[in-house]
């Protein structure tokens, strides 16, 4: 863990907030796992278990006006960005009170209020969108940062290279965040990439890059501050590879034949919540009663979200074709 001294922001209140944010994601998704086995949630569901430090370290550093593009392992990003947990849970139930009107589900959370431009189920599909969002802001003379989250699997896609090149070529304020959890679904990184030191790929497009221990929320936050500052001021893209590990399967229905249990057990003690809790305790920044209080607050929020989703309603079938196109009349002839 990074030394306490050179971390000016390490107030107790901020540390507990980081801790709570991670617990919030972990418990939320743990409940989702249970609800999925009870057939309340269907479709694909990809959990963030073990990678929470990345979302909690990066997203709070953004401004309200900044924009986020995520992929399908997106619950943590949405929750930390401020998409209401009630709306997220309702969306996973497929209820119309969900943040995408129940139409997207776990992989397609959208929220205009927080500039959360959705998950994307096509690997690498979000990268060009992020470039475009930054291009628009660039042409409108703004100074926002667009953060684009993707996994190590995406670096093999053509769009990854096209997007990095466009961002560098046109000087666009995109923070590319690669959540490298060592597996592209069932394929270990070494079996799909000739160069496994992913952050080195950014150099081909002259994009500043660094790798950070994705299990250390404080380290991730420090890197995020540097990266976001650089992007906003230099008006250039930045590449941040967060090295992490996912403790659960790729998605719900995955026998994980590609790795054995000992490897998972070896990573468990290194997961961000356990590490951060240990670090907080050794630095006397957390009191014994903090943890149960935080967990109670989080579990109460989750219970409320579930009740909200249970009470949610199904979008009427008659609305099936609404919003395929905009409903405002288009001025045809002028």
């Amino acid at each position: 863990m990074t030394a306490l001294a050179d971390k000016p922001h390490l107030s107790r209140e901020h540390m507990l907030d980081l801790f709570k944010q991670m617990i919030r994601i972990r418990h939320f998704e743990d409940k989702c796992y249970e609800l999925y086995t009870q057939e309340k949630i269907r479709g694909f569901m990809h959990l963030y278990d073990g990678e929470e430090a990345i979302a909690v370290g990066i997203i709070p550093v953004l401004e309200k006006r900044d924009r986020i593009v995520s992929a399908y392992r997106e619950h943590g990003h949405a929750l930390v960005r401020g998409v209401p947990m009630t709306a997220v849970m309702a969306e996973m139930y497929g209820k119309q009170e969900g943040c995408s009107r129940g139409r997207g589900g776990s992989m397609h959370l959208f929220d205009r209020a927080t500039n959360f431009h959705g998950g994307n189920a096509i690997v690498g599909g979000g990268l060009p969108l992020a470039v475009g969002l930054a291009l628009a802001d660039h042409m409108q003379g703004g100074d926002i940062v667009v953060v684009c989250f993707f996994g190590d699997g995406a670096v093999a896609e053509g769009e990854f290279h096209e997007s990095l090149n466009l961002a560098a070529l046109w000087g666009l304020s995109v923070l590319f965040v690669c959540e490298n959890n060592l597996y592209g679904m069932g394929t270990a990184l070494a079996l799909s990439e000739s160069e496994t030191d992913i952050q080195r790929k950014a150099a081909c497009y002259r994009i500043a890059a660094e790798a950070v221990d994705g299990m250390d929320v404080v380290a991730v936050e420090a890197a995020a501050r540097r990266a976001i500052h650089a992007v906003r001021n230099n008006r250039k893209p930045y590449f941040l590879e967060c090295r992490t590990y996912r403790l659960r399967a790729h998605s719900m229905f995955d026998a994980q034949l590609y790795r054995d249990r000992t490897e998972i057990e070896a990573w468990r003690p290194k997961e961000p919540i356990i590490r951060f809790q240990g670090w907080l305790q050794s630095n006397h920044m957390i009191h014994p009663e903090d943890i149960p209080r935080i967990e109670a607050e989080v579990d109460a929020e989750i219970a409320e979200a579930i009740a909200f989703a249970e009470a949610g309603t199904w979008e009427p079938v008659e609305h099936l074709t609404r919003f395929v196109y905009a409903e405002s009349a288009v001025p045809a002839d002028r």
Partner: protein
Amino acid sequence: MQQETARSGTIEITYREAVREAIRDAIKRDNRVFLMGEDVGRYGGCYAVTKGLFAELGPERIRDTPLSESGFTGAGIGAAMAGMRPIVELMTVNFSLLALDQILNNAATIRHMSGNQFGVPLVIRMATGAGRQLAAQHSHSLEGWYAHIAGIKVLAPATVEDARGMLWTALEDPDPVLIFENVMLYNMSGKLAADAGPVNIDKAAVRRPGRDISLITYGGSLWKTLDAATTLAAEGIEAEVIDLRSLRPLDDATIMASVAKTRRAVIIDEGWRSGSLAAEVGMRIVEQAFWALDAPIGRVCSEEVPVPYPSHLENATIPQAPKIVAAAKAALGRP
């Protein structure tokens, strides 16, 4: 350049110049509008449509892109989501296949899937069709594929008036609009009102009224169909020629009104017959005007082969006026 015919207020202009004027006019009128595509700037466009615009409007608004169709099309979508009104030029429909995922899974889908929180007011222009001996990979006509996609609109300007007028209306549309420009039309010149402006993009047009048979077509095939109608007229057959203009949504009302009158229809479509736009139009006629039909619906489409390089084979592949005349006569039970 256009010759100004002061007296009657019309100008003689080529289809290419009409498209260029539409782009220039849009960029000048709305600072959210910019053009993005391969070789559209310094090179002036591979069909010289955007020649001169780079010098006049600058690199920000006439933006050359690397050969990354998926990348810059996705960027166009992202920019549109964030308040811009981009015009993405995919050089030809043949290269648009690399961007089909972005067009289908993002552009066409986001409004519906986001519960109407995000729209994609984007225009994508691309050349289409065969006829320049560019062989199979450069001669596709896939408007029918795109007209299949829920969430986008698809246009086929066949006249200089539509080439000049459709772009602005499309840019004002809150949803993605694809505009297909047939390669054989760029050099065609025609009359245009000097002050020509935006036109509607949801109605078909009766280009030639007639009583005996409805010839329904779009884009590059319109002019071959009009030639066929002239030949038929010499034999006493009055054919009505319908220019679809919009391939999605289709203007059923105009089609059915024509078929109800003539009781016969032949559809001319440069796509391959199987699963073509012609198949869709034909099915709609059967659904909505069955009891008016006095003959089976005819189709004149491309032969189902990769378009060959030699011109005699290329001409044999794509619809031509004689084939249209023959199909019309067959429908009329005439030799």
